[in-house]
């Protein structure tokens, strides 16, 4: 029963990883860019929400209405002034440019907000600690359920957008062949701009849940990037639903690892990620 609980908590933790990985997975799927600033961008959104909650006493839920569009606008600017140019520089430049951006963001946040760890949990009432008891051994946090639900909802919404809408078709076509879409009247740069805006809007939602479920500080971004990347890689690059399964595999691996030995929580996650890579190498299938 205790083991079952560990497993269940792992699944919920995986929901969180999938949530922070949505943006990374989507951007890679569309533009073939691994955004190394992804974690820092998530943390930036968390700080924006924190400032609105802490200084202006705006509920994080309400603040999201402002922060999501703001981050989307930032995404458009990011594409217009950084990624567009980086993409033309070859395979390595987007990595270098986004890594530089991550350093700028992390340290600028540190200079602005200091080293203190923050959390949004004081601003969301009982939600942060409420839970349902299923049996004596198994309890499920309401926040955990909300996060897993949000991850599924966000991935579902993006999949639906891609499959069913005009802009979705344009994004898929551009992802396949940015040169040819121009011949049918689509400006690939504009599509990339929208895609990056969408990616950063998703990062804003991820930032909200990062800040609500735990604590964060200016240097939390690196770890978020790693977890998100592991979820995407385990689930398979370019597959949105794969990212959900990848996140869950990562969360379960960490919890199972921790139940064997408490210090091996992260080790088990990293080892799982590397094992999947080794497995793919052995099978001769490596993407990206």
């Amino acid at each position, binding site marked *: 029963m205790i083991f079952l609980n560990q497993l269940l908590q792992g699944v919920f933790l995986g929901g969180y990883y999938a949530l922070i990985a949505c943006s990374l997975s989507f951007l890679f799927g569309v533009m073939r860019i691994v955004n190394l600033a992804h974690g820092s961008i998530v943390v930036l959104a968390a700080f924006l929400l924190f400032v609105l909650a802490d200084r202006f006493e705006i509920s994080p839920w309400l603040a999201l209405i402002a922060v999501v569009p703001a981050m989307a606008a930032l995404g458009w600017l990011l594409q217009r002034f950084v990624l567009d140019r980086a993409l033309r520089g070859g395979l390595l*430049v987007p990595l*270098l440019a986004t890594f*530089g951006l991550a350093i*700028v963001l992390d*340290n600028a946040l540190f*200079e602005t907000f200091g080293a203190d760890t923050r959390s949004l949990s004081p601003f969301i009432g009982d939600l942060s600690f409420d839970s349902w008891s299923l049996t004596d051994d198994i309890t499920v946090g309401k926040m955990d359920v909300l996060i897993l639900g949000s991850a599924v909802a966000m991935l579902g919404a993006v999949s639906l957008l891609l499959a069913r809408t005009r802009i979705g078709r344009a994004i898929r076509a551009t992802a396949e062949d940015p040169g040819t879409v121009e011949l049918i009247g689509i400006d690939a740069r504009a599509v990339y701009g929208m895609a990056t805006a969408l990616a950063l809007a998703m990062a804003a939602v991820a930032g909200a849940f990062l800040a609500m479920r735990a604590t964060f500080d200016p240097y939390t971004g690196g770890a978020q990037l790693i977890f998100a990347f592991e979820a995407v890689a385990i689930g398979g690059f370019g597959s949105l639903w794969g990212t959900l399964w990848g996140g869950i595999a990562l969360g379960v691996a960490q919890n199972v690892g921790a139940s064997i030995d408490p210090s091996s929580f992260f080790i088990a996650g990293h080892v799982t990620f590397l094992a999947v890579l080794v497995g793919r190498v052995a099978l001769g299938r490596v993407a990206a």
Partner: protein
Amino acid sequence: MKVQRWTPQSGVFIAALGAMVLVLAVGPTWFSAGVTDRLSALFVYVILGAMWNALAGYGGLVSVGQQAFFGLGAYAAIRLSHADVPVYLAVALAGLAVGVVSLAIGEVMLRLRGGEFAVGMWVVAELAHLLVNLDPLVQGETGTSLIALNAIAAEARRAYTYWLSLAAMVALLAVLFALLRGRLGTAIQSIRDDERAASSLGVNVLATKRIVFVLAATGCAMAGALWLASAITFQPKAYFSVQWTAYMIFMTLVGGIGTFEGPILGAILFFLVETFFGGRGVWYLVGLGAAALAFSLFLPRGIFGALEQRFALRLLPLGFRVVERTKP
């Protein structure tokens, strides 16, 4: 057609370089303690810049996890010294030991590409950090120190570390230079330009990348061990920090990725920036990140690459150039 490698310019430069190394070698006898320490740090920076450049600029492999080897190098020195290897020998051997370990790491990681390799290496660094923390000798983040150094007088310690750093820097640069000028250099460049084409021309892509990867790992590990020799204390967090890779990327991008001299110039610039602005909080890190971002977008060959083009500079010739065309 007449082809040449060495130009009078590069000959003069090499001679000047040799003279400079000789002057530096006798440095500790008349430098102040502070200058000796700072120069030791500079040599480590040069190693880091040159090694990251070897990997990215010549191998086309962007890694954000080179701190793995930096940290492992320091850890290996601790372990070797703990096993009663004389302390400076331990520092010297640590890099080579990690180089052997990197062979195994490379076996998996080198099959990855682009972003997958980049972040994959970061995961390797995190994993290495976590595993080192498990060692009872290290005691988690508490860390330990290279205790054996306490037996040596501060003055002598400073000089030994300086000499060892200088020697490591010169040796690593010489090895890299020799490799790039030989057959491997041509293979590396062809892989960077077009991996598939290189492979179809009979270049063994994996074997070539492996050599560069192991060299870069060994170099970064030596740098980590040398850093430990100056700092004495080993706190895993400080050594396995991604900050080290950020420094390497800054040095390489600003100096000039894919040029031999660029990262050396970049290391000197980084050294100056750190010396003058390092005390003012982390704003200088914001500046470093912004510089890396700007150079990658607007001056992709860095300062040295731009100078090289502008003034036809050839200080350390890696390739050949046609000096006189045969008349048709």
